[in-house]
């Protein structure tokens, strides 16, 4: 898995093309996103105060970022007072170094709870390079890991695989030739496979859903119980959390424990939420470390126009709602964070140096904003980031870019009614050879072909609205402009 710090290999349209031809993948993605969306819709609409919860969620996240330095210090103070250790990492490499030093143990193994943050820093690769074996314990992450695959969704990372594909994978890698392909069979196989790891591996690595400044506590939200296994049974627990994960107080959970499960999996509450603070004699790991990760989150914070990207609580609702994601799945984004949130987060975490095609991987329809539990205005940030991509280009290229030239020409035409009329007249003549019998323009020549490559176009009508209006209201003078 390439961390976002590296240059993305392919841009979005290039990477999406083969995926669009993969009918199996598209039907798997469509099914999974349909199911979650349906469940989400049902449980969100039974909440009379959903919009008020979203408002509060947005305000709490905004407030936490405004006072981030103080809250981080407060978290550190309380965590240490409860017997925990707190480390700070400026970037992925530093975080990996810290974890590697802490994770060495005689078994050479580490069990892991599904964590986007460890994907982001490429921790598994770093552990493997140091000769250690990270074992993913979330069912979907296990499927991804055993298949040397990449996660394709924040909440259900293996949604691109169906039961038959998973059956083949488990039968091969777990040496179970008789394995059935019912989801029950596959889940049981994973339970048996992982049970021994839980009971014998001395070290676990986790991410965090929330850090609570007031108590120094950590909260993890999960379904399968693999999270509870990892954070309860081993002797040592290492939690890696972005500095954006902070909540001011314990009470704030009352908002997020309502917003997150309904948005993420369409459940009223997910099966397990765990909260713990430092270490407790006789209960759970006796050594606990938190690694607070920046990895360019402070750069995201710096831009007031896109700062609210950091409000994200990683529910994945925007992915399920996005018409682009629903066509391509997560892999086309070529970044750890896919879908609408990935399209705004990845380029920013990469300092706009890679993932530059992602802000364009959207139709700006606004579905993501509507479902976002903390009201991140993703379409507006996408447009802002498109601006930043263009600003980043050399001036001459920017000025001579066909789109920029076309826009300047449009501006010049629109400024004068005479020019507009003339252009419309010319356009009506020029378009004639391209109008198909269906009444649509399906293909334009030359440089204009870029527009019709992925969409059809309505031709200019024979009569403009102004002409129609004048004809029906002969008394009305020319429009006041011009």
């Amino acid at each position: 898995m390439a961390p976002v710090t590296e240059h993305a290999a392919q841009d979005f349209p290039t990477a999406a093309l083969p995926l669009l031809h993969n009918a199996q993948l598209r039907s798997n993605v469509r099914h999974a996103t349909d199911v979650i969306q349906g469940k989400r819709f049902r449980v969100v609409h039974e909440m009379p105060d959903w919009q008020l919860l979203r408002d509060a969620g947005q305000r709490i996240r905004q407030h936490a970022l405004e006072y981030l330095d103080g809250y981080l210090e407060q978290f550190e103070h309380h965590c240490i007072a409860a017997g925990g250790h707190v480390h700070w990492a400026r970037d992925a490499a530093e975080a990996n170094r810290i974890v590697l030093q802490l994770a060495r143990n005689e078994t050479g193994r580490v069990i892991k709870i599904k964590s986007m943050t460890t994907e982001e820093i490429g921790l598994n690769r770093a552990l493997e390079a140091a000769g250690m074996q990270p074992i993913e314990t979330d069912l979907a992450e296990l499927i991804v890991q055993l298949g040397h695959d990449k996660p394709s969704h924040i909440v259900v990372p293996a949604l691109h695989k169906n039961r038959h594909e998973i059956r083949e994978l488990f039968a091969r890698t777990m040496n179970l030739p008789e394995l059935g392909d019912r989801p029950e069979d596959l889940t049981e196989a994973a339970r048996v496979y992982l049970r021994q790891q839980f009971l014998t591996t001395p070290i676990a690595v986790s991410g965090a859903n929330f850090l609570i400044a007031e108590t120094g506590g950590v909260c993890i939200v999960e379904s399968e119980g693999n999270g509870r296994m990892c954070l309860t049974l081993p002797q040592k627990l290492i939690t890696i959390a972005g500095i954006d994960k902070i909540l001011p107080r314990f009470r704030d959970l009352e908002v997020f424990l309502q917003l997150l499960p309904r948005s993420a999996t369409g459940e009223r509450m997910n099966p397990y939420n765990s909260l713990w603070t430092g270490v407790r004699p006789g209960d759970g790991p006796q050594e606990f470390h938190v690694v607070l990760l920046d990895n360019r989150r402070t750069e995201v914070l710096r831009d007031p126009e896109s700062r609210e990207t950091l409000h994200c609580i990683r529910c994945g609702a925007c992915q399920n709602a996005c018409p682009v994601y629903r066509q391509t799945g997560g892999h086309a984004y070529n970044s750890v964070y896919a879908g609408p949130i990935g399209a705004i987060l990845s380029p920013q975490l990469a300092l706009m140096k890679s993932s530059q095609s992602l802000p364009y991987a959207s139709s700006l329809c606004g579905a993501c904003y509507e479902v976002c539990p903390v009201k991140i205005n993703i379409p507006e940030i996408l447009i802002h980031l498109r601006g930043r991509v263009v600003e980043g280009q050399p001036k001459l290229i920017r000025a001579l870019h066909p789109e920029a030239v076309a826009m300047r020409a449009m501006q010049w035409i629109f400024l004068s009614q005479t020019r507009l009329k003339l252009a419309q007249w010319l356009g009506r003549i020029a378009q004639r050879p391209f109008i198909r019998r269906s009444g649509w323009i399906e293909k334009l020549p030359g440089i204009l072909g870029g527009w019709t490559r992925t969409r059809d176009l309505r031709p200019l009508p024979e009569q403009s609205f102004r002409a129609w209006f004048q004809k029906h209201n002969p008394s009305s003078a020319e429009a006041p402009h011009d």
Partner: protein
Amino acid sequence: MTDVHGAASSARSEILSRIRSITGSGPQAESPREAWQAIPRLYRQHGTLDSAQCIELLEDRLRDYGARVHHAGPSEIPRTIAMILAEREKQRILLSPAVSASWLPDGFPFVADAALSYQALDACDGVLTGCTVAIATTGTLVLCHGAGVDAEHDQGRRALTLIPDYHLCIVARSAVVQTVPEAMHLLEPYSGQPITFISGPSATADIEMTRIQGVHGPRILDVVIAE
């Protein structure tokens, strides 16, 4: 570890000063405390259902998760527990400290947790606990671990309700609230202790979005609502 710690202190100050160079320039007229208190919380803070409706809602939600729900009057708890355990064919049942001796039926080898090994826990048939708070709207049982505030609510260490495959939870009628904010308010005194929210048996929907009950935590959850 020395180089980690040497780098750590500079990483800490660098990250904090980066943040201060950004947020420090903004309007921070209010103290964090005042600003936090000023956040509008117009969502439901209290439920509107009476106690009987709350219990009914909780029961509905628990059943929706695949848990089985029973009711018992104060004197019927031992009999109800005996009936459930017999039906489930469970014998060796672990006890959390919060379990009152008056609940226990005769004839079962109940096991108190005396720092048992994980293997010993794994060898038990199940675990019997109380419940600190139950949330009706979400069908959630909240367990506080450790005698931080009062032993009455100590549901034992977290491994007790994790390793055995069966969980029987006794919920006092008085512990049931309707909404999440009411529950968080009651949990405030335990905020520094380990807390587990349990909403049904463990589950996954990772394979074709089909909900499968019972992955790593207890696969079966029974609940007795004690009147």
